Structures are given as structure tokens and as C-alpha cells.
């Protein structure tokens, strides 16, 4: 005696291909979600390791706000605060290193060899830890040292205030290699040696504080201003770790968003499969109802079918997802230029993926199950299934249209708060669901236009294909929606990537109006510019323009100022307020200042406002002559304020530089000049890079990340294609008599295949067209969401992207039609005469 489960399973195995497609869709959807969980876990665990190495097990970290740091006496004063168990002081500085084979910038960290291990758990993998405060030796991070070919016991040269000096490599530390993110290695050496050798006497940048009782944190924080005379920032360790986690939250969110989209697409296929089964088995279900099966029994039976698809698909999906996670992690590493983090085994992630896969599948099964349970026993006797009244359908569509209009109106509003930003991302997801629902409304309007090429190409079969697409609106709508989701995301990612890359390039162009940039880790004397201006190929008039970077204080804010030559920077920067010619004329005359937009907005600064800047013991009034969108980057996140070189020199005595903007002569050989600049820069511990390669590296960074997301979305296109196979197989199964009639009347097998391909391709193209429109809107929203003061992407619509999406939608649907077309062509015309 077969049970309900037997009946459900038999229904599934009766339609092997369709069930297989539905399972495959769930597998892909769950795999993407599972891979997303695992990838995010891998990134998070790597981040936590980085966090641990950064803040160690200190309870509080106090950092100096300006570059002069704290006086050394602040260390003893802090140690004397009740509740403080120990204080480990650190000093940091960027400098240049070289060995026989390698060279580059490093982050120097001076530590106390006795105190620091109390707050930072160091693991020495080779050599020894620092043994004395005066030891002329360094500790290196093992992975970085390996890449540089340095071993414990070797020597490295570091650029000190007295030129390059040799340091012994005392040992190698096992900790995350942050040079992968920052492109500079970390070199630790005794604090006293760092202070003496790098001009940092009586200077401490950071205090790591261990408390006797973490509950006393607030009390200790309250006493810190008494102990530290200069401005400082307090970072509580848990908060700092949270900040680190927040920094990757957007990326993790994006991965999850695309994972969810893939799963939703998979769920649609399950919905499709079960809906079609219910339609197909209406009479059989009616018979079961007539023989006494309750509506609940039918509901259960359909839900069991959904659950079976969900369980099989989710389990397989998790297995595939673990493999996919490894690929994603590799891609993340490749896009960020870092070593891929190890992939952890996460039973929680696996469990969660299984649950999500199953719940989504059951959710997708619910509507078909309710429909099945509402089938009347009369259907066994040939009665037709009652359908929704026109009025109800219209009402539903109207409600969906109104909600869509409201969501779009909300998304069109500018972003004002972080909460609104999050709400906008949720609204985007809601918009996707609404478009999915409304796809069936759009199909009848768009199908005649989209099918025009087929009507022209295939004539009668094109017409029949177009009519078939319009005929099953709900089914076609769901199938088209599958394409809309994935193809719109490709458009959105492609266009956003272009917008962000252009914004990045604009930033690079705006802040370095030159062909090459020479960067120094330390302040260099202005006299050194002659070494570069005399190189062959450098423009003789305005070839080398030094840029100084120095700290200034305005109304208690510690800001970074960049001093530039106004005549060289005349074409640079994007002006948000103020007139370019007047601004630069004012800067050439004297104390004009350009301020970054974000800072101007926060401080409500306007043109002609006077600002009193302090540097050391000097202070001078500057007048705001322009507000600019991009500026040189600064640690405070505002970007640098820009002042004229002459004023910086006369008012503050700034006579050194950090960057050199180098222009090539019109007839110069850029490659040769690049090579000369590189060699000269190296002599003085600096690095040279062409602005083109700077722009390219910006483009690579953005492009790499977006390619990763596009990779996920392409899985959605595969699911969409599976949906086409499923729908077409069902369509053909339902139209056997029609196709047989056409065959009996002389339609060739080739024409039948044309019909199937044209029908499927029309669906794919419909998805592509709606996807292009939706994708353009999503791009607009994403560009708005990512607009900040120093990053100003502009909406871009790429016709190439639209063309690729059209081809992708059309071709993948046409390929997906191959199997159903073969089935259709096999239909025997005799079927037209079959009576049942």
C-alpha cells in the first residue's frame, strides 16, 4: 500500500528530467549561499587574526592624533593611573628598506621588548625575540620575509635619519602579513633604537594598555587626559575589532545579496516545477479528492515533493558550495592581490545553508501546494479548474505597481543616513521580487516587439512562438524573471564597475596632474627635486612639482595639508564650489586654501571663509577659495586641505616634500623616462610610478572585485537557462496535440524545432530587455549609495554591457531550448488523432 511519501516520490520520478532540473537549481542556489557563508567566515577569521595581531590582548589602545605623537613622560603617567596593569608604548614610522635583491616601503614599529609581549602574543617561528632595548635588530613577519627572501640571521638596510643602516634580523613572527593589504611590510625593532635612529626622540605614537580589571575601562579612560598632554584617540579593543569587521561588512553583504539572488532563482524553478506538476495532475488530484483524500492530504503530498527536492538539492548544494568557496576565496585573494585566507570548516555555516536551502524550497512549494489542495473532486470528472477572476488579478497587479512606484520613489531619494543606506539595499531586494511578480504583466506587451526578428526570420513559426510566449503568462513570467534577476545584476555590476573605475581614475587624474609620481616615505629636502628635473625627458618648464604633506590644526581638528604649486595644479581637482581660475589666482597671490567637500560640508565652510591654521608654534589665516571633490588621501578620511607651496614655505617653514609630480616633455620617451625616474628614486629611498599605472591599479582593484561578483551572477544565468528548459519541456508536454496537429498539416521537424527555439529565445531576450532596464536603475542606485566626499562615481550606461546581456540572454535561452526542441521534433503527428 503506497504511502503519501511514495506517491510524492513517484510523482517526482515520473518527471525525471524536470525534477533533476529543479534539484540542480536548488543545488546551485544553495551552493552559492553556502559558499558565501564559508567565504565570509574565511575572510572574517583572517580579519580576526589580523585584528588580534594589531591590538593583541590590550584592553585599550591610545593613539596620538597628530604626527608629533605623545611625549615619553605620558607613558609613566598612564602607568600610574589606578587600574592600569601595564602599558606598552609604540612608535611608528614609514621608511624604506633594501636588501641585495629587494626594496620598498616598510612600516616601522618600535616596541618595548619587555613590555610589548604582555599585550601582544608573539609567536617566533625562526630566530629569537628581541632580547634587549638597545639591540640593533629587527623582527619581521614570516610570510613577508619569505616573499622577500629574508631569513633569520640575515641583514636588512633601513633608511634612517643618517642614511641607510644595517639591522640584523633577530627572528621571524607568525602573524598575518598585512603587506598584502597595505603593500608595506611591518618591521619591529626596540623602541629606544627606533627613537634614536629615526629621529623620534621623546616620541610615542601608541600606548597599548592592559587593565587589572576590564570593568574599570571607563574610569581609566576618564583619567587619560590628565596623563597625556597632547590630543589622542582611545580605541577600545572590542570596538576596534568591530570596526575592522565593519570594514568588510559591505563586501560580505554583497556576497550574501548575490547568494540570496541565486537561491531565489533556484526557488523559482522549484515553484515552477511544482506548479506545472499541479496543473498537469489536476485530474489525478481530483480523483484522489473524489476518493476521499482531504485538502490537507493533498497539501502534504505536494509539500513532501518540495521537501524532497529541497533536501536533495540542499545537501548536494552544500557539498558543491564548499568547493565553490575555495574558488571564491582564491578569487578574493587574487582581486585584492593577497594570499587567500584559509577556508575554515564551519558546521554552523553548513547547517545554516541546509536550513536556508530547505526553507526557501518549502516556501517556493507552498503556493503550488495550496493550489493543489484547492482542486475540486469535480476535476476528476473533467470540470475545469476555477481561476482567479479578472478583477482579482487586476487588483493584485495594481497593488504591485503601486508598491513598485513607492519603492522606486524611495530609492530615488538621496542617501542621508547609514540606516537609510541599509534600507535602500533591502528595498532593492524588494524591487527585484516585485519585478519578478510584474514580469507576467510585462510579457504580453513586450513579447510582440521582442519576437519581431523571429517573425521576420521564421515567419509563421515566429508568430506561433510569440503567441505561445504570451499564452502562459504566469509561467513565462517566472521564467523571464529568472533571467531578469541575473542579467540585471550583470548590467548593474558592469556599469557600476565602469562608474567606480572612472571615478577612481578621475581621482588619480585630479590629484596628480602629471605623467609620473615619485613617492617618499619620509620628508625629503626640496633641493632633491633638481635630481629629477635634470633627467632627460622631463618637461623643462614645469617638469617636477613637489608636494609637501604636513599636519595643521584648525579649531582643535588635526588636519593634513598638502602644499602644491598652483600653476602646475591649475587643471587639477574637481571644483564643487568656487571658480577654478579665481581660486588658483587667489592661491598664487597668497593664502588661499582648497578644502575637501566632505570636510566643508561637515563644518559648513563656504567660499571666502577665513580659517586659522596652526603648525607647531606658528599660525596663519587662510581663505577658502574652492571646495574640491577629490583630494590627496589622508588618515582622517577627509582628504588633505590644499594650500599653495609658497605660503606653506613662508608661513610654516615647510621646505621638504613627500611626492613629486613629474611631467614628461612632449617628445619624451615615456618608458625611458619611467626607467630613469625609477633608478633615481631608488637612489634616495623613493619609488616612482606612472600615473597611468596608478590608474590601472585602481581599475584592476575595482574590476577584480566586480568580476568575482559577476562570476556569481553567471550562475544565476545558468539557473535561468535551466528554468527555460523546465518551462519549455512542460510547454511541449502540454502542447503535444497542437504540435502533432501542425505536423499532420505539414509542419516539418525543422519548423517545430524553430518554433521551440524562437519561443525560448524570446523569453531569454525578454529577460534581457527587462534586465537591462532594471540593471540601469540598480546601477543608478548603487552609484548613489557609494558616493562619498572623495569618491564621486557618475552613473554610466555601457552599450557593450547591454549588447553582451542581450546576447547572453538570447543565446543561453536558445541553447537551453535544444533539448525541448528535440523532444518537440520527436512528436508523432499521429498524436493529433489520439482521443485521450
Amino acid at each position, binding site marked *: 500500500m503506497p504511502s503519501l511519501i511514495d506517491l510524492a516520490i513517484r510523482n517526482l520520478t515520473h518527471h525525471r528530467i524536470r525534477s533533476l532540473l529543479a534539484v540542480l537549481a536548488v543545488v546551485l542556489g544553495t551552493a552559492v549561499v553556502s559558499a558565501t557563508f564559508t567565504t565570509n567566515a574565511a575572510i572574517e577569521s583572517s580579519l580576526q587574526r589580523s585584528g588580534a595581531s594589531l591590538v593583541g590582548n590590550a584592553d585599550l589602545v591610545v593613539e596620538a592624533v597628530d604626527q608629533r605623537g605623545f611625549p615619553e613622560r605620558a607613558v609613566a603617567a598612564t602607568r600610574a593611573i589606578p587600574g592600569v596593569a601595564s602599558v606598552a608604548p609604540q612608535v611608528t614610522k614609514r621608511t624604506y628598506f633594501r636588501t641585495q635583491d629587494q626594496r620598498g616601503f616598510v612600516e616601522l614599529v618600535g616596541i618595548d621588548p619587555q613590555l610589548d609581549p604582555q599585550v601582544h602574543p608573539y609567536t617566533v617561528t625562526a630566530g629569537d625575540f628581541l632580547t634587549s632595548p638597545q639591540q640593533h635588530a629587527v623582527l619581521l613577519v614570516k610570510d613577508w620575509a619569505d616573499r622577500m627572501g629574508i631569513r633569520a640571521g640575515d641583514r636588512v638596510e633601513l633608511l634612517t635619519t643618517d642614511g641607510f643602516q644595517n639591522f640584523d634580523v633577530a627572528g621571524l613572527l607568525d602573524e598575518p602579513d598585512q603587506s598584502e593589504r597595505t603593500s608595506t611590510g611591518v618591521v619591529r625593532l626596540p623602541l629606544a633604537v627606533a627613537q634614536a635612529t629615526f629621529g623620534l626622540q621623546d616620541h610615542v605614537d601608541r600606548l597599548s594598555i592592559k587593565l587589572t580589571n576590564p570593568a574599570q575601562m571607563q574610569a581609566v579612560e576618564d583619567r587619560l587626559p590628565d596623563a597625556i598632554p597632547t590630543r589622542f584617540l582611545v580605541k577600545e579593543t572590542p570596538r576596534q575589532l568591530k570596526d575592522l569587521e565593519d570594514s568588510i561588512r559591505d563586501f560580505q553583504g554583497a556576497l550574501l545579496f548575490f547568494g540570496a539572488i541565486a537561491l531565489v532563482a533556484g526557488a523559482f524553478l522549484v515553484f515552477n516545477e511544482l506548479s506545472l506538476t499541479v496543473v498537469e495532475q489536476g485530474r489525478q488530484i481530483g480523483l484522489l479528492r473524489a476518493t476521499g483524500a482531504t485538502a490537507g492530504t493533498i497539501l502534504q503530498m505536494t509539500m513532501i515533493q518540495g521537501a524532497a527536492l529541497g533536501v536533495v538539492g540542499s545537501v548536494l548544494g552544500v557539498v558543491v558550495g564548499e568547493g565553490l568557496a575555495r574558488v571564491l576565496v582564491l578569487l578574493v585573494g587574487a582581486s585584492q592581490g593577497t594570499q587567500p585566507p584559509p577556508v575554515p570548516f564551519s558546521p554552523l555555516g553548513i547547517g545554516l545553508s541546509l536550513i536556508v536551502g530547505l526553507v526557501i524550497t518549502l516556501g517556493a512549494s507552498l503556493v503550488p501546494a495550496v493550489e493543489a489542495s484547492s482542486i475540486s473532486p469535480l476535476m476528476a470528472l473533467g470540470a475545469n479548474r476555477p481561476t482567479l477572476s479578472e478583477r482579482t488579478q487586476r487588483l493584485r497587479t495594481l497593488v504591485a505597481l503601486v508598491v513598485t512606484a513607492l519603492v522606486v520613489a524611495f530609492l530615488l531619494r538621496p542617501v542621508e543616513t547609514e540606516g537609510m543606506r541599509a534600507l535602500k539595499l533591502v528595498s532593492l531586494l524588494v524591487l527585484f521580487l516585485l519585478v519578478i511578480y510584474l514580469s507576467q504583466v510585462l510579457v504580453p506587451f513586450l513579447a510582440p516587439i521582442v519576437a519581431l526578428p523571429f517573425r521576420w526570420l521564421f515567419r509563421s513559426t515566429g508568430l506561433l512562438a510569440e*503567441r505561445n510566449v504570451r499564452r502562459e503568462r504566469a509561467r513565462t513570467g517566472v521564467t523571464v524573471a529568472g533571467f531578469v534577476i541575473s542579467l540585471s545584476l550583470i548590467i548593474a555590476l558592469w556599469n557600476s564597475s565602469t562608474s567606480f573605475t572612472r571615478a577612481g581614475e578621475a581621482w588619480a587624474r585630479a590629484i596628480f596632474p602629471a605623467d609620473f609620481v615619485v613617492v617618499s616615505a619620509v620628508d625629503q629636502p626640496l633641493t632633491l627635486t633638481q635630481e629629477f628635473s635634470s633627467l632627460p625627458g622631463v618637461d623643462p618648464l614645469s617638469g617636477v612639482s613637489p608636494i609637501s604633506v604636513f599636519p595643521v590644526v584648525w579649531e582643535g581638528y588635526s588636519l593634513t595639508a598638502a602644499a602644491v604649486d598652483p600653476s602646475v595644479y591649475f587643471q587639477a581637482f574637481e571644483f564643487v564650489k568656487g571658480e577654478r581660475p579665481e581660486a588658483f589666482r587667489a592661491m598664487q597671490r597668497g593664502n588661499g586654501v582648497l578644502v575637501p567637500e566632505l570636510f566643508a560640508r561637515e563644518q559648513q565652510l563656504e567660499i571666502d571663509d577665513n580659517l586659522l591654521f596652526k603648525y607647531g608654534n606658528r599660525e596663519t589665516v587662510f581663505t577658502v577659495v574652492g571646495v574640491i571633490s577629490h583630494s590627496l588621501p589622508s588618515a582622517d578620511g577627509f582628504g588633505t586641505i590644499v594650500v599653495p607651496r609658497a605660503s606653506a614655505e613662508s608661513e610654516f617653514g615647510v621646505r621638504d616634500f613627500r611626492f613629486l609630480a613629474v611631467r614628461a616633455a612632449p617628445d619624451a620617451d615615456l618608458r625611458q623616462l619611467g626607467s630613469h625616474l625609477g633608478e633615481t628614486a631608488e637612489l634616495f629611498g623613493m619609488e616612482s610610478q606612472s600615473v597611468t599605472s596608478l590608474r590601472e591599479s585602481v581599475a584592476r582593484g575595482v574590476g577584480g572585485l566586480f568580476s568575482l561578483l559577476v562570476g556569481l551572477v553567471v550562475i544565476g544565468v545558468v539557473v535561468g537557462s535551466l528554468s527555460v528548459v523546465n518551462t519549455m519541456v512542460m510547454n511541449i508536454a502540454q502542447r503535444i496535440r497542437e504540435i502533432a496537429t*501542425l505536423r499532420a*498539416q*505539414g509542419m516539418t521537424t525543422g519548423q517545430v524545432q524553430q518554433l521551440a527555439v524562437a519561443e525560448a529565445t524570446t523569453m531569454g531576450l525578454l529577460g534581457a530587455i527587462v534586465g537591462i532596464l532594471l540593471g540601469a536603475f540598480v546601477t543608478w542606485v548603487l552609484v548613489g549609495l557609494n558616493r562619498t566626499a572623495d569618491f564621486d562615481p557618475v552613473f554610466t550606461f555601457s552599450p557593450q554591457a547591454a549588447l553582451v546581456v542581450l546576447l547572453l540572454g538570447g543565446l543561453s535561452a536558445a541553447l537551453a531550448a535544444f533539448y525541448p526542441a528535440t523532444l518537440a521534433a520527436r512528436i*508523432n503527428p*499521429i498524436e493529433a488523432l489520439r482521443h485521450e
Partner: protein
Amino acid sequence: MGAILEAERLARHFEVGDGTVLALDDVSFSIEQGSFIAVMGPSGSGKSTLLHMLGGLDRPTTGRVVLSGTDLSALSERDLTLFRRKATGFVFQFFNLLPTLNVYENVAVPFMISGRKSKADMERIDDLLMLFGLEDKTRRPVSQLSAGEQQRVAIARAFLTEPAIVIGDEPTGNLDSASGRELLQLLWESCDNYGQTILVVTHDPGVAIFADRVLVLQDGALVDDYEMGRREQHFDARPLLDHLQEQGLWGY
């Protein structure tokens, strides 16, 4: 008039499991152009199999069908399909109209398939719509028509290419008796007025009385070939029923 269709020693075997089922056994007959033929017989007698052979939908295991001088068994699958386009028309019990097309488009399907759209072709469609009383319903979806109207659309479609033979499979099987009679009257008139050859398969002697000749099949064999003469001479079913009873062929 000469024979438009010749069936010569038709046999059709089907492999079922380990055995063979003989659906049609050594059936021979010929049909003259412009005649109205009814094929009768109990379920399983081979009526459908014969219909498939005559319509070029299936091939005999042995024997041959010659329609309009063309030996169907000599044609390739593709040529047979192309031959069906112009030489056969079908009328089905369930009408088999395409729900996505309107009345006009359903009638035009055979021309659509062939890519024909000359002025003469368009006039032919209009003529048939007029002939079958559908001229004021051309743009209507077929789902909005009555069963009788739907079958008239199906007949107009079958007649469109002026085929050598129109084959009907229980054409009135899904109609009420009044609509059925009206439809048979139309078929008979087209046969009488335009010389259209018609062959219908039916269980119903009420349908068969419209024919000039009744072929009776039993267990795959042609057991009776009854010439009834023109319809005007046999308005009721009595003579046919008497004949079938005499032959022991009624009451199945």
C-alpha cells in the same frame, strides 16, 4: 472519375513486448475523386491505423498507398511531410485548433506553414470563411466559439489547400446532434459541389448515411464494402443498418 486514392494490400504490424499485433491485414480498396467514404468498425478493428496510413501519418508494414498518383511509401519522411501539406486535410474529433490564434489565423495555418501569402491565397481564406459562415468572426479567439463553430473552423482549415483528400476522425464525436448534422451537411455539400474527396472514420451510422460508400473493418480486415449511392437516395439510416445486420456486422 478516376481513383484518387488506392490502398493496395495494406498490412501493419506492431511489436508489443515479445509478440506482434496485426492491426491491419491485407486491406485493399480504391476511392474515386469526389466521393464521400465512411469507415466503420468496432474498437480495435484497425480504423485508426488505416486512417494513419491513408493520411500519410504512418507507413504500412507491407502494401502501399497511392494518393493522387504518388506512392506514399516511396517518399522520404521530409517529402511525406511536404506531401501532406498539399494533399491531405484533417478534421479531428477535438478540433485541434491552436488557442493562441484567432479564427482567421487558424484557418490560414496550412498556408502559414508553407509560407504562402499571395493575393489568391488570401482570397481563398476569405472564400472559405464565407462558405463556412465564419466571415463575421475572423478576429475572434477560437475559445470564444461554440463547439460547432470550432469544428467549422477546423474543416475550413482542412479544405484550405484543396487537398486530394480530407480525412475526418469522428468529426462529429464532440458535437451535439444538431451541430453534427449541420456539419455533415456542409461536408456533403462541399463533396457534391466542389468534388472534394472525403473519408471519415466513425462509429455512428447516423454519420455514415451521409457517405456514398461504407467500408467496414473487423479485426484488421476489410469485411464489407457497401455502395450506398448518393445521399439523396438514403435520407435515413435504416437501409444501412439493415445491410449491416444482414451481414452480421451490426450490434458490435
